[in-house]
C-alpha cells in the first residue's frame, strides 16, 4: 500500500515505514527559535537540567517579532538570546534580517525532506519545499535543544488537487483562503495537507509558501508540496531521485481528497474575525477602510511587493488611508529597492517599514483604533490582533490589498 508525502518524510527520518496514528520519535534536522519566545526557552532548558545544545549548527535564532524594539523590555529578549548564543556557540543568529519563516527557507536552512520545528505556529511554511515542519511550544523546544528529538503522531493526510487554468486575477492567497473557507478553521486539525495538480506545479516556491504558511489556519499540522526543479533551485540542492521519491504514491490513502477546478477560483477576503469567514471580494466591495498592510511571512515576498507595485504604479493611496508595506526580509527589501518596486510603492504613498513581523503580530507597525478597518495580507484576523477588539481585519491578497488602498474601500482587480 502506498504512502502520502508526510508518511514518506517521517519514514525517511525514523528509518522505518510509518502509518497515520503511529507515535514515533523523530530526529530533528533544524529548529527555529524566535526572539519573543527565547527567554522562556532558555529558562525551560536550564530548568530541565540541560547544559549543552545537542547540535549548535542545527539551531537558528531569529529576532523578528520585537524588531525594532517598541517597549523598553523588548531589548531584554535580544540580550538573553545573544548570551545564550555565545554560551552555546550558536553559529546562526539573525538579529534584523527579516521574518523567521522567510529566512529559514530563503537562507537555505531547510531542505526538502527535512524535519523542522519552530516556536511559532507558522513554521508549517517550510512544507513549501517538501519539508515536514510545524510549530511547537517553548517547553518542547527546550526539550529538543537538549535531546535533538521529539515525539510526533503521524498525521492523516488531506489531499488537495487543483487543476486547470487560474483566472489572471487570482493569487495563491486566494487559493488558500478559499480552501480554509471550505475546510473551516478546524477542518484539518491534527492532519497534514498535501497539494498537487497543474496549478501547484506552475506556482513559484514563494506562492507555495503562502499556501503552506496558512495551512495552520485550518488546524493542519503541516502542508507539503512535492519537491520539483523549482524547489531544488530555490534550495540550492540537486533534485536527486531520493527527493523525487518524496512525492506521494499514486495508491496512497487519504482521509479526504478535494478536487478543485482552477477556473472556479475568484479573489476572496476573509472577513472579521475568523480566518474561515471567507467570501468573494466582490461581496465585500465598497466597505470603507482606514488602512492597508502588505507584508508578513504570508505575503511579504518580492512577488507580492511586485504585484502590489503593478496595481499601484502611477496611482495614489486614497486620502486618509495608510498603506504600510513591510518586506519579509532584508534580501526581499534589497531586491525590491534594486528593481524599482520600492520606488513605485513609496511614490504611491506607501510607508515602507523595516523587515519584521510588523503589524501581523500586533505589537507595532500600524496598530488601529476602535471602529477602524484594515485590509491585510497576513495570516490572521483574530479579534484584537491589530489593536482593540473593535478593529475589523479583512485578509486578502497583495493585489486586492493594493487596489483597496487606492480605492479607500475593499476593491479587487478585475480579471
Amino acid at each position, binding site marked *: 500500500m502506498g504512502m502520502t508525502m508526510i508518511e514518506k518524510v517521517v519514514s525517511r527520518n525514523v528509518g522505518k515505514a510509518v502509518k497515520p496514528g503511529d507515535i514515533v520519535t523523530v530526529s530533528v534536522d533544524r529548529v527555529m527559535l524566535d526572539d519573543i519566545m527565547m527567554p522562556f526557552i532558555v529558562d525551560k532548558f536550564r530548568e530541565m537540567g540541560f547544559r549543552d545544545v545537542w547540535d549548535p549548527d542545527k539551531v537558528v535564532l531569529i529576532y523578528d517579532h520585537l524588531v525594532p*524594539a517598541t517597549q523598553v523590555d523588548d531589548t531584554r529578549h535580544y540580550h538573553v538570546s545573544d548570551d545564550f548564543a555565545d554560551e552555546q556557540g550558536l553559529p546562526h543568529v539573525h538579529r534584523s534580517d527579516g521574518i523567521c519563516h522567510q529566512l529559514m527557507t530563503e537562507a537555505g536552512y531547510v531542505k526538502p525532506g527535512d524535519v523542522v520545528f519552530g516556536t511559532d505556529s507558522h513554521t508549517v511554511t517550510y512544507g513549501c519545499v517538501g519539508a515536514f515542519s510545524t510549530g511547537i511550544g517553548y517547553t518542547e523546544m527546550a526539550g529538543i535543544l537538549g535531546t535533538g528529538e521529539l515525539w510526533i503522531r503521524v498525521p492523516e493526510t488531506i489531499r488537495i488537487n487543483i487543476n486547470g487554468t487560474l483566472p489572471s486575477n487570482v493569487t495563491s492567497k486566494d487559493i488558500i483562503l478559499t480552501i480554509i473557507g471550505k475546510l473551516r478553521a478546524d477542518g484539518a486539525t491534527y492532519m497534514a495537507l498535501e497539494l498537487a495538480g497543474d496549478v501547484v506545479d506552475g506556482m513559484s516556491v514563494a506562492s507555495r509558501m503562502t499556501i503552506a504558511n496558512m495551512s495552520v489556519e485550518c488546524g493542519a499540522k503541516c502542508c507539503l508540496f512535492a519537491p520539483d526543479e523549482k524547489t531544488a533551485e530555490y534550495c540550492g540542492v540537486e533534485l536527486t531521485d531520493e527527493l523525487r521519491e518524496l512525492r506521494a504514491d499514486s495508491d496512497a490513502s487519504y482521509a479526504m481528497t478535494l478536487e478543485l477546478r482552477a477556473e472556479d477560483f475568484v479573489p476572496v477576503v476573509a472577513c472579521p474575525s475568523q480566518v474561515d469567514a471567507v467570501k468573494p471580494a466582490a461581496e465585500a466591495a465598497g466597505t470603507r477602510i482606514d488602512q492597508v498592510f502588505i507584508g508578513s511571512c504570508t505575503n511579504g515576498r518580492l512577488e507580492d511587493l511586485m504585484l502590489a507595485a503593478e496595481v499601484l504604479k502611477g496611482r495614489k493611496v486614497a486620502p486618509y488611508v495608510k498603506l504600510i508595506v513591510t518586506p519579509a526580509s532584508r534580501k526581499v527589501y534589497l531586491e525590491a529597492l*534594486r528593481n524599482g518596486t520600492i*520606488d513605485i510603492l513609496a*511614490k504611491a504613498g506607501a510607508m515602507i*517599514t523595516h523587515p519584521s513581523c510588523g503589524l501581523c503580530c500586533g505589537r507595532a507597525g500600524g496598530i*488601529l483604533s476602535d471602529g477602524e478597518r484594515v485590509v491585510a495580507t497576513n495570516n490572521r484576523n483574530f479579534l484584537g490582533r491589530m489593536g482593540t477588539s473593535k478593529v475589523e481585519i479583512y485578509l486578502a491578497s497583495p493585489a486586492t490589498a493594493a487596489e483597496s488602498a487606492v480605492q479607500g474601500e475593499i476593491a479587487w482587480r478585475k480579471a
Partner: protein
Amino acid sequence: MGMTIAEKIIAAAAGKSCVRAGDIETVTLDYMMSNDGTTHLTIDMYNKLVSPHISDKDKLIWIVDHNVPSDSVKTAASHKKMRDFARENDITLWEGRGVCHQIMMEHYVCPGQLIFGADSHTCAYGALGAFGTGVGCTDYLYAMVTGQSWLLVPPTLRFNLHGQLRDGVCARDLILSIIKMISASGASYKAMEFGGDGLASLSIADRICICNLCVEAGAKTGLMEVDDKALAYLEERGRVPKQVFAPDADASYEQVYEIDLEDIVPVVAKPHFVDNVVPASECRDVKIDEAFLGSCSNGRIEDLRAGAKVIKGRKVAPKVRFLVVPASKEVYIQAAEEGLLEIFMEAGAIVMNPNCSVCWGSCQGVIGAGETLISTGTRNFKGRAGSPDSFVYLASAPTVTASAVMGRIATADQL
C-alpha cells in the same frame, strides 16, 4: 537704533515699525504646526470651549510623525482623533510622510514668517530666516482659535561664523560646541542669530541642524541670515519669501561671539545633558548597543550620504542595532534613488520608515536598561530613548555611523 532679525520679524507680525527686546507684543502667526505628540490634547481642550471656531484653517499644519506607524492602542486612538478632527475641519494633515520639522522645511517655511509649533524643535525654521518657536497645547489652542498670540521679544545672541569646517567635521559638531560654550541654559528666552562669512559654506541641511538644536541651549529660536543659498532652496521648491530681513548694522545684541569654524572638532554630548560636550576622541572606549542616524536634526539626504560614505563596503558591528531613519518621504525616495538605502541595508542596518524613532523614545527603536545609544537625535536626557537606566550620546552622522561599525564610539577617520 537698528533691529536684529528676531525683532524685525516680530515687528512685522505685530504690525509695528519697531520693537525692542523685552517688549511684549501681540503677533499674527503665519503657520501653526502641531504633531501627534500633543494634538489629541489640544483637540480635547478645543472641544471644551464654548462655541469654538478655527480662525484660519489654512494656517494649521498637522503632522503625524512621532509614533508612525502606530505602535499601541493608545497611539492609534490619538491618531484617529487627530485624523477625524482634521478631516471634519479641513485641516491639512500629513501622516507618515516624515518628521514634522522636515515637512515644514520642505513645503511651508519662508523667510520673514512667524510660526508656532507644538514642538520645541520648531526653532529649526530659522534656517530659512523664519521665526519658529515651540509652544504648549494651551498656547497652540489660543493661536488656533484667534490666529494670534503674545510674544516676549527676545534679546539676541549673535554668532559670527568665519572660515569653514574641516573635512569630517559637521554642523552638528559646531552647534554642540556652541551649546557647550554657552551652556544648556545660555540662551534661555533668547534668540540665537547666525551670520558672518562662514555661513556661505554651510548647506541648508547644516543650517537646519544648527537652528534645530538652539533650543538645547534654551533658545526661543535660532535664526540664520538669508543668503542666495536659502533663496535658491526656496525657488527650487516654488516658494517665495514673505520678506527677507537682514539685521541692521547697528542692531543691539546681548552678546556677540566670533567663531572660527576651523577650530571645531568632532564632538559628542555625553549623558545626560546636551551641554556635556567633549571631543569624540575622549569617548573611544564607550561600547554601544544601538546607533541612530535620523531625526529632524540629522535625517536629511546630506546626512544619509555622509553615513553611507562611511559604511559603504563595511558591516554594522555584531549585536549592534543601527537604525537609519530618513527624515521624510522625499528624503527616503531620494536615498533609494541614489542607492544609499541599498548601502545601509547591505551593511546590516535597520532602515525604518520616516518618523521620529528613538529620538522621541516612545517609538520604534527604544533602548533597554543598561544600554547605550549613540544618536544624531536632539536630546540625551535621562530616559529620553527608552529605559531611565540607559545612556545616550549625541554626535554627527559620520561619528554615529563609524560607531555603528566599530561597536563603540568612534570617528570616521578611525576606520
